[in-house]
């Protein structure tokens, strides 16, 4: 793709400094020229078109912008793009593929862990980080791990269930082909018994 320079700063004054950075985003190295003050969240959203990372506050409180930074969950609204130079970033777009879902994604829809969906990418990234570190969390551990992410719609109960569901699914450790096939059928909504 293109550099941010072309994407969102069509006519910068000559004295606007830019810096070249290389960030591995969802497994692909991306080289971009960015203003030093550009936030990582804005680079991802406007520069790279990865609009799954949302911003819901200006103060590092809401967690809608949560991405994995070298595997750790961080709030991308609170990091400058230049700080990410040479590092790896994973966004919701890198969590599973269009046809093959991550168990966390499956869990969120299975347990109705989302309503408006605005907090969901950040919630799922924080959940992914938790399960990477702790494959068998308690409800309390899930609640603590997600306490940096606000949801205004769900009341959290189903989000907690979703994460526990995903953890169980992963622990059940199905052979990869089978898990893949099941995930694929999940693309269409599945009816459940009442």
């Amino acid at each position, binding site marked *: 793709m293109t550099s941010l320079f072309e994407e*969102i*700063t*069509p*006519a*910068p*004054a000559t004295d606007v400094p830019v810096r070249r950075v290389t960030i591995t985003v969802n497994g692909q190295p991306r080289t971009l020229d960015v203003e030093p003050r*550009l936030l990582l969240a804005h680079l991802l*959203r*406007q520069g790279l*078109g*990865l*609009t*799954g*990372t*949302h911003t*819901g*506050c*200006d*103060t590092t*409180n*809401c967690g*809608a912008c949560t991405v994995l930074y070298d595997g750790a969950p961080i709030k991308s609204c609170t990091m400058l793009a230049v700080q990410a130079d040479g590092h790896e970033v994973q*966004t919701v*777009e890198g969590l*599973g593929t*269009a046809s093959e*879902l991550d168990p966390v*994604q499956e869990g*969120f*829809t299975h347990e*109705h862990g*989302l*309503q*408006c*969906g*605005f907090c*969901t*990418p950040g919630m799922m990234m924080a959940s992914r980080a938790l399960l990477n570190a702790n494959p068998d969390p308690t409800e309390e551990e*899930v*609640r603590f791990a*997600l*306490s*940096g*992410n*606000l*949801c*205004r*719609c*769900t*009341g*959290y*109960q*189903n*989000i907690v269930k979703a994460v526990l569901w995903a953890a169980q699914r992963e622990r059940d450790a199905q052979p990869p082909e089978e898990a893949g096939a099941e995930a694929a059928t999940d693309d*269409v*909504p599945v*009816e*459940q*018994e*009442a």
Partner: protein
Amino acid sequence: MTVTESRALDEIKIGGMGSRRRRVEDNRFIRGRGHYIDDIVLPRMLHMEILRSPIAHARIRSIDTSRAYEIPGVRLVLTGEMMATRNLAWMPTLSYDTQAVLATDKVRFQGQEVAAVIADDPYIAKDACEAIDIEYEPLPPIVNPTQATADGAPLIRDDKENQHDNVAFDWEVGDKERTDRAFAEADVVSKISLHYPRSHPSPLECCGSIADFDRATGKLTVYMTTQAPHIIRAAVALVAELPEHQIRIISPDLGGGFGNKVPVYPGYVVSILASILTERPVKWIEDRTGNLISTGFARDIYLDGEMALRQDGRILGVRMHTTSDHGAFFSDAQPSKFKIGLMHSAFSCYDIPTAHLTARGVYTNKAPGGVAYRCSFRVTEAMFFQERMIQAAADDLGMDQAEFRRVNFVRDDDFPHRTPFGFLTDSGQYAKCLQVGLDAIGYADFRMQQEEARSRGRLLGLGISTMTEPLGAGNSREYDILGIKMFDSAELRVHMTGKALLRTGAKTQGQGHETTWAQIVAHELGIPAEDVLVEEGDTDTAPFGMGTYASRSTPVAGAAVSMVSRKVRAKARKLAAHLLEVSEEDVEWELGRFYVRSNPAQGVTIQECAAAAYSNMPDGMEPGLEGNAYYDPPNLTWPFACYIATVEVDPVTGVWDVLRFVAVDDCGVRINPMVVEGQIMGGLTEAYAMASMQFITFDSEGNCVGSNFMDYLLPTAWETPGWELHEVVTPCPHHPIGAKGIGECATVGGPAAFVNAVIDALGGTGVRNIDMPLLPDRVHEALTQHHDVSGAPPVKTD
């Protein structure tokens, strides 16, 4: 016909009513593929930033934009003066007041919109805002109703002719004389004064718009975070005097609304003018501070309540006086003809002979309305006041909380019932709901535990909140927005292959309409829900409707979906008769299929009828299988809820923890129980937020305390209690599928359960009231000083 003969589809299997169908919209949201306002990028798009007043009340001496224009990339700077040349410096509000778009004469609250910069990039626009020089002459700020109505108070609305004080309205309802007589006859009069603090809906996504005016075609397209796109189209047509057919409002995926996205905000209007002037798309994305300090707040109302009681526990009458703080402009986004919204829906579940309410609204130097936050226009305050008054009255009589409610409930066989303020309730099983709640919480056992714990110095409490509330504005007789009657609509097209497209005048913001509307179609037509595509939010394609708020979607648009499906079924029946070669009277319906009455094995499916509508219709029949329905409900719907909280208060710190929370909701027939439960749990969390931490207050200078998520606290997964849900089903008698509204019940009824529980825990200390939020220091003060802690929350100073 016997059961064995039936070939009707299994409704749950096709995702019909009652199915816990997984949500269709999730497929894009879990992949990060939602389409929220800020995700939309148009070619040649410019970015707008709003400059806000740092001062609550001041005269504007001068605005100098020249330094802003010197910044490369700045295309346009708009001020009130420039808006005024196009007659757009002020706009009408939904409550028949006016509101400044960009300030011209004065600023009237901190955060008021003063200027806007349109630039190539949002960072440049922000830089340029800082380069606008404004000279203010500060005026004394007014931050509460007492100051507003004090002698010699400065006049906030000096822009209005004939406005000589800061009173926005005085209003009353009910029977004063009869109520006075009830009080004269009372054995006991119970009194309480309460404050419901200012709050903010704060959906996780802030507001925004992208205006795109095309001079070549004359078409104005506006992507906008709105819960009511058609109302916006009408408003733009009227205010900006643009032809309505050339205006297209598109409300994309919304990151929550909760009432915050109902009003028309200055940012929308300015972005439209900016696009017209620059002839380029202009995007405005509000930041969180802008959202919290300038957009539709809620509540901020005081109550003086009195209840006339007979010794045996019967309520003889109720008096209420409310004083509401509307901020600088009376811009409540509410469609009723009642100045104080539906405040007088209070006490609708109790059999009370008479009541009288007086209401005064005042202007202050605070952000203007909205007022409804997950709430049908003051219903939240009404039910909170009601249930706090009920608890205080029971305590004054020395009566058990549950028994006092039971004695005064409207009985199941008393419907339809005229409420003390004149509403007509139509259904409910109040005593049963209460009993389900009491059983679930283990009422008698808890009271014993509480007694026992108290003897060891532990403070346990139990709070009950029971209420019925009016959901689903309209009907058209009593509800309108700027004269547009409150109804809603649906349009259904069944394609040749039996798949369908449904569009409604509502607008989902997380409620899951894409999933649940399809379930109603499945229920009515037997078309599997997964074969029905649901679209909303685009005024060029959706039928005219009033949008989604006040829990009105299911009561009104949901009913329209049902009605349009029935219209389509009526036509399909004609096609079936043609295909089966019998007369229409001989055709019977079972889910998904018409059959011949005398020979049930001979039938055609709805899909076969759809094919015939395009390929094999009878001579003279209009081709196609589609219809539309506009639904004007005969009444509001009246769900009932019983919420019970148990808490433990730490006597040393005043910190309180929720031990358990039981919710019993009767919202009639549930379309998708999973979605309903999600709505209830979300609502309860907002109720807990109100009771425990969430409030916006102002210091004496009018500075907003609560302008970001560090100061305006929302509960996280960590603090939020677990919810135990139960249900009772009393179908709505007038709704085509027996459903009632649900979205806001928990937010409305929930807060009183928490507060009642904490007050109950403090039993014996003489404390009758602590106003929300029940911050530990307020509880601690009440506990240690043995007095009520009332009024607006304290201002933090550091």
